């Protein structure tokens, strides 16, 4: 995920796109080290564990789990990967930019 994440962040620099993680690692200090090592530049909620309140609320049992939300906060795709994920992101970013220019 990390190389794909990094390339997405780079591709959509200055465009209405962001990756928000929900991380389930239990050791916060070790996690921070890994984030540095892997150059993970996007923000994550720290869930504390796989059973933390955020993954519990979102009924997450399989890891990783992915949701794609549009600029209005609507869930538009779930557990899409690779080229499918890229296609969704491109479509929704264009949608968001089109809405912005209308204003």
């Amino acid at each position, binding site marked *: *995920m990390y190389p794909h*994440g990094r390339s997405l962040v780079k591709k959509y620099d200055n465009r209405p796109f962001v990756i*928000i993680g929900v991380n389930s690692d239990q050791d916060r200090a070790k996690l921070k080290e890994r984030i540095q090592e892997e150059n993970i530049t996007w923000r*994550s909620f720290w869930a504390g564990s796989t059973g933390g309140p955020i993954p519990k609320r979102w009924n997450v049992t399989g890891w990783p789990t992915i949701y794609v939300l549009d600029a209005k906060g609507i869930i538009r795709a779930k557990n899409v990967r690779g080229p499918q994920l890229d296609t969704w992101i491109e479509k929704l970013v264009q949608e968001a930019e089109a809405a912005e220019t209308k204003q």
Partner: protein
Amino acid sequence: MRVVPILMLLTAWAVAEEAPEAAPDAAALEALTAAYNQATSAFFKPYREAQAKGEEYALDYSKHPRFTYAPKFAAMAKKAKGDVALDAWVMALRSGYRNRAEAIEAILADHIESKGMINVVGYVRWEKNGDALMQQIIARSPHRDVQGFAMLLRGQTMLRRGNPQAERVLAAAKEKYGDVSIYRGRFTVGEKADGDLYEARHLAVGKKAPDIEGEDVDGVAFKLSDYRGKVILLDFWGDW
């Protein structure tokens, strides 16, 4: 030429060939399971020892004992009878027996009313005709825990596949079997169904995502809605 001894030899051989091999019993399955567990422990030993020293060790998973033992469990299942056969099939499935369809077909033909089906439904759910098979199990099992677990898993599988019927099936599971205890008493069908119903009702494609409030890795509080106006890739991840 010594005809008589040769005839005796041939007769003895013929009798030996006709005597039926005794069906494997529970002790035989226990012994095979113990052998599998020992082999698996031996496989992981260098990794555990390295870990204890804080070192790395790359396991070659192609050498995991499951590849040799799964067919042995299946072979035993085919020769065994009753509960021993069912338990042997379950061990075959657990150790990753390649021909899952064969195992499931054999189990459903002979053991669908057994209590042991509780250990089988988890495998049936993902089969191509899994939904129909789950319905069969629910209809034919006389055991309430098997019915309840099967209905829950059927609903969950539909949810995973984006089937809009998921909510109806999960709600039925909760209503009829909510109190049924599953996963060795750690959960009830109702508790699990609640989580899945929330997902079916609020986390489906087309729904407005609930807000998330929490702290980031540096301890700074923030909300998902802080990023409204941007497309968000929300990624539940872990480095483990």
